[in-house]
């Protein structure tokens, strides 16, 4: 098998020709209503928004940086502006049960008017009632009632006194009551000793009279409370009459105005009755008490719709329990926490009721009880503003139980796919409530039609964010970068937020330069600045290689050693890093030791790759008998966890080199995964890997033989940095496509791997023959080894 041919320059980068764009700057382009290439997600959004059945809430998922929120919000706002305005809601004092505030639903926009009408009514009460009760008419009538009451007592008492006197009995007043006693002609109480001198018959008569008077007095006193009640009732009736005189008319007007709202009418009636009952508060002239009374008549307008708005589209950026369902505030009064209907505050669900509520699912899940609260509220289809303490019984302070608000809201969760799948798998209620998934595409095909749409999307972002327009060169460069972001030269990334950030920075530079438009130079400046800001770790890593602290050979040959490539992801920034992979081989019983795994630094996928390699070796070199090999693999100078199988081609090359003792060329780094048949498969991060090894080689000195071997299926993903492309164009660096591991072996050893003969043997002078010969040597040597083997192995023996 011949070595693979280097890739042509055109394969390394797919440039976007500005001439293909039919505009000068993005200012000429019409903004887009909807993002391009998202038909699947937008259809799902449309379905979710239009379905009015319970449970058809939405989960919008997309890649990180896709600006899911803005896409969803804009789309829903487009729908919501034509939707019906939601009801206005307010809480009112419940005159029957003060801890259960009543709920009033008002037609859209009438909430404010109702609140103002009640305020005016209360203002009227503040002035009209005192004036009425200070009027001469009221004072005279009240005085008359009080005089009647006093007169009734006095007359009854005087009658009692007269009756006593007529019977020669004195009525004596004591601090705590009254007593009857025999009286002489002078009106004095007779001395008890003198009384004894009276004839017995007379004494008995007087005693009997006194006992009778005592009973009468008792009877009279028993009537006093009743007389008091009668007077109070008369005063109440007078108060009612005068109160109605003062505020009956304005209340009646409001009753007519809100006649179609039974709760409003009932409130007005309750206000009137309560005022009549508690009118004494006005008599006290204590402002605090009066305001406390009037406070109960007002409305706590929870939510109201604006005149020009449709249905609300609300994004809650901190979806805690209380911010979702509202809260009940407290005030300290004489050292105690007190609350009432006016202290109920709306939550995001109140504000979004009748419309759409957008919530970031990650935030929702990370706030205690918020997810459970949202689910419970959606299932119940009503909002109960209550604190967590109240819900879970942590707190026993008296609180309110407001009438729940009926809920008709479309909840839209925004998040990444992992969370969607985790919720779907582990929360059985999730799919009952969120039946519609809207999955935003990560990227779009880079064809002629999409390029135009993409340009309009860029123009839309520029206008929306108030940025300078971009000339077509800048747009073309942005598209190239979008392909790099998508890690595919044939696709464009949909990560609108990342694009918007890049454009904002470029616009800033353009503004600094005094340019009317953002040009390609500003985009390049931005990309360089972004890379520079993020590249501190990469530079330190390169320095370590350059100083020889981390050993990476870029020239010469070595047995059992090859340069593999890995990608380090630091936040949004990723860079490639070469790693020296080494292998050893000796006689044994088919064990392949993955040192990374033994050291608990290797992940499962990496282990899987090593096992596949072991099977490939066994099936190729010992298809009929036991593989007499004990080999090991290690990532040199790697001290962190590694995972993935993208180094398995490189590992296999190192292993075969170690077995065959055929040296490998160190100037070519290898990436790619391998299957059990030795076929090379695609891996991720090829651009970063190529650029990473290129940087190391450039620092060490490019000699024209260095390069990177990568899976042929990854070639369409190449969008390499200009420096790499320039070096390739100058013949100082090469990229080689790999389809089979033999391609890599031929490239690194300079030997033909060789095809097996009919008897299963390998031709002389081929690499595979060298491997087979060495394994045969191992097989002979193994019995003499006395069975001393490695403690553990990765194969499945």
């Amino acid at each position: 098998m011949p070595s693979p041919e280097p890739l042509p320059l055109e394969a390394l980068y797919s440039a976007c020709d500005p001439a293909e764009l039919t505009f000068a700057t993005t200012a000429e382009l019409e903004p887009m209503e909807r993002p391009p290439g998202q038909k699947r997600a937008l259809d799902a959004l449309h379905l979710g928004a239009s379905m009015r059945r319970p449970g058809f809430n939405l989960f919008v998922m997309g890649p990180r940086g896709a600006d899911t929120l803005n896409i969803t919000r804009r789309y829903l706002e487009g729908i919501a502006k034509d939707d019906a305005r939601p009801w206005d809601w307010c809480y009112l004092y419940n005159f029957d049960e003060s801890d259960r505030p009543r709920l009033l639903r008002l037609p859209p926009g009438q909430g404010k008017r109702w609140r103002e009408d009640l305020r005016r009514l209360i203002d009227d009460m503040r002035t009209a009632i005192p004036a009425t009760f200070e009027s001469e008419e009221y004072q005279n009538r009240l005085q008359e009632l009080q005089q009647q009451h006093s007169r009734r007592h006095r007359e009854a008492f005087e009658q009692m006194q007269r009756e006593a006197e007529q019977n020669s009995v004195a009525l004596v007043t004591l601090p705590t009551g009254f007593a009857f006693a025999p009286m002489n002609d002078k009106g004095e109480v007779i001395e008890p000793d003198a009384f004894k001198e009276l004839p017995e018959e007379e004494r008995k008569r007087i005693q009997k009279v006194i006992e009778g008077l005592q009973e009468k007095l008792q009877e009279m006193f028993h009537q006093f409370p009743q007389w008091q009640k009668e007077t109070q009732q008369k005063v109440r009736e007078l108060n009612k009459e005068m109160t109605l005189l003062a505020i009956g008319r304005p209340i009646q007007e409001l009753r007519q105005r809100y006649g179609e709202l039974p709760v409003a009418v009932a409130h007005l009636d309750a206000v009137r009755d309560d005022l009549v009952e508690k009118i004494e508060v006005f008599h006290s002239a204590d402002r605090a008490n009066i305001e406390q009374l009037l406070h109960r008549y007002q409305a706590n307008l929870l939510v109201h719709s604006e005149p020009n708005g449709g249905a609300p589209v609300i994004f809650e950026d901190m979806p805690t329990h209380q911010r979702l369902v509202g809260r009940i505030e407290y005030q300290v009064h004489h050292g105690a926490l007190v609350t009432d209907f006016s202290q109920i505050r709306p939550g995001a669900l109140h504000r979004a009721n009748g419309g759409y509520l957008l919530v970031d699912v990650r935030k929702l899940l990370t706030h205690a009880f918020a997810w459970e609260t949202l689910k419970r509220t959606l299932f119940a289809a009503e909002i109960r503003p209550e604190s967590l303490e109240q819900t879970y019984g942590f707190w026993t302070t008296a609180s309110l139980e407001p009438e729940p608000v009926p809920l008709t809201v479309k909840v839209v969760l925004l998040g990444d796919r992992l969370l969607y799948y985790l919720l779907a798998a582990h929360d059985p209620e999730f799919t009952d409530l969120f039946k519609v998934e809207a999955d935003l595409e990560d990227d779009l095909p880079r064809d002629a039609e999409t390029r135009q749409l993409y340009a309009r999307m860029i123009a839309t972002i520029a206008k929306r964010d108030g940025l300078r327009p971009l000339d077509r060169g800048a747009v073309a460069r942005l598209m190239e970068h979008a392909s790099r972001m998508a890690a595919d030269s044939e696709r464009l990334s949909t990560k609108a937020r990342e694009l918007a950030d890049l454009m904002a920075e470029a616009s800033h530079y353009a503004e600094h330069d005094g340019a009317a438009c953002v040009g390609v130079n500003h985009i390049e400046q931005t990309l360089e600045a972004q890379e520079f800001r993020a590249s501190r770790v990469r530079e330190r890593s390169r320095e370590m290689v350059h100083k020889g602290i981390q050993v990476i050979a870029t020239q010469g040959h070595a047995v059992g050693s090859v340069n593999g490539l890995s990608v380090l992801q630091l936040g949004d920034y990723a860079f490639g890093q070469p790693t020296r992979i080494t292998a050893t081989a000796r006689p044994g019983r088919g064990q392949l030791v993955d040192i990374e795994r033994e050291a608990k630094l290797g992940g499962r996928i990496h282990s899987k790759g090593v096992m596949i390699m072991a099977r490939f070796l066994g099936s190729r070199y010992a298809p009929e008998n036991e593989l007499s090999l004990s080999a090991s693999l290690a990532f040199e100078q790697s001290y962190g966890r590694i995972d993935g199988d993208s180094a398995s081609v490189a590992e296999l090359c190192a292993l075969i080199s170690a077995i065959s003792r055929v040296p490998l060329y160190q100037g070519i780094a290898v990436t790619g995964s391998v299957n059990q048949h030795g076929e090379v498969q695609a891996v991720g991060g090829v651009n970063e890997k190529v650029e990473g090894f290129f940087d190391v080689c450039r620092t060490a000195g490019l000699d024209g033989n260095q390069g990177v071997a990568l899976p042929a299926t990854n070639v369409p993903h190449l969008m390499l940095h200009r420096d790499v492309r320039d070096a390739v164009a100058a013949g100082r660096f090469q990229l080689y496509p790999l389809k089979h591991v033999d391609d890599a072996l031929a490239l690194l050893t300079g030997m033909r791997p060789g095809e097996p003969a009919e008897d299963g043997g390998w031709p002389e002078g081929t690499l595979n023959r060298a491997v087979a010969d060495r394994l045969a040597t191992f097989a002979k040597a193994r019995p003499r080894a006395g069975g001393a083997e490695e403690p553990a192995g990765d194969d499945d023996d």
Partner: protein
Amino acid sequence: MTETGDLKGQEPRSRQPGAEDAGIRRVVILLDASRRSMAALDAAAIFARASGAELVGWFVEEEELMRCAGYPWVREVSLSGAATPMQPGEVEQRLRNRAEAVRSALQRVARTQGLRTRLHIHRGRVVQKVLELSTRDDFLILGKIGYRGALGLRVGSTARALVGSAPGRVMMYEQPARSVSPSVIAVVVTPGEEGLRALATSVALAVNNGASLAVLVATDNESGRDRQRENTIRTLLRDANSHIRVLTVREVTTNNVLQVLGAESAESLVVPRQWALQAQRRRVDLVEEALMPVVVVP
């Protein structure tokens, strides 16, 4: 009723004959330890201090209570309707307690008002004792009503008895709606010496309290005597040195006095005794209807 003039701003002249009669040398407060009599004590203390007079408290241990307790079948009927036997020892103890309460209250006002006070405790019948002990120069103060106020009555039997029989001036005290110290004093000036004495008393009170005066003068049919009275009234009023409003009416009735009290926002009323006694017999009892201290001048 007609308004005859506003005398504010006129310079005071020398004291006229008869004015010294209005001077207050000793204020006697009649106490029974009821809530209302205690309120009267506070007002009396302020009044005595303003007048520069001595304050003397009288507490009468009512013999009749002890006699009542001597009858085993006599019951004390409380306002709740409960009837309980009276024990002589217990009644005696209660009298001592009340006397002690009175003594403490008097000491308190002496301390707070910086007054010289004395307390006399007597045993007997209240009205009889007051008439025995008081002189024409005493200014007697008592609550309009004592314990019988609990029945809803506004004027008690002691007050009613003393209005007609006390040798000197009597103030029947009732807590006014506004302040303890009156800012407007209304006075009824009837024909004759008694009316002028009432006026002189009201002037003295106004001077002591810095209060304004609302004077309701009854005219006499004989024009010659009218002019003479008018001169005397003017002379007395010049001593007041305060805002004075004089209203002249053909006859002073209970109703027009009540109207003046309301219109002038008066907080104290001074009336001649005979007029007061006549008023008591009318349908509307002024002493009862005027919700303020009423001073009766013999």
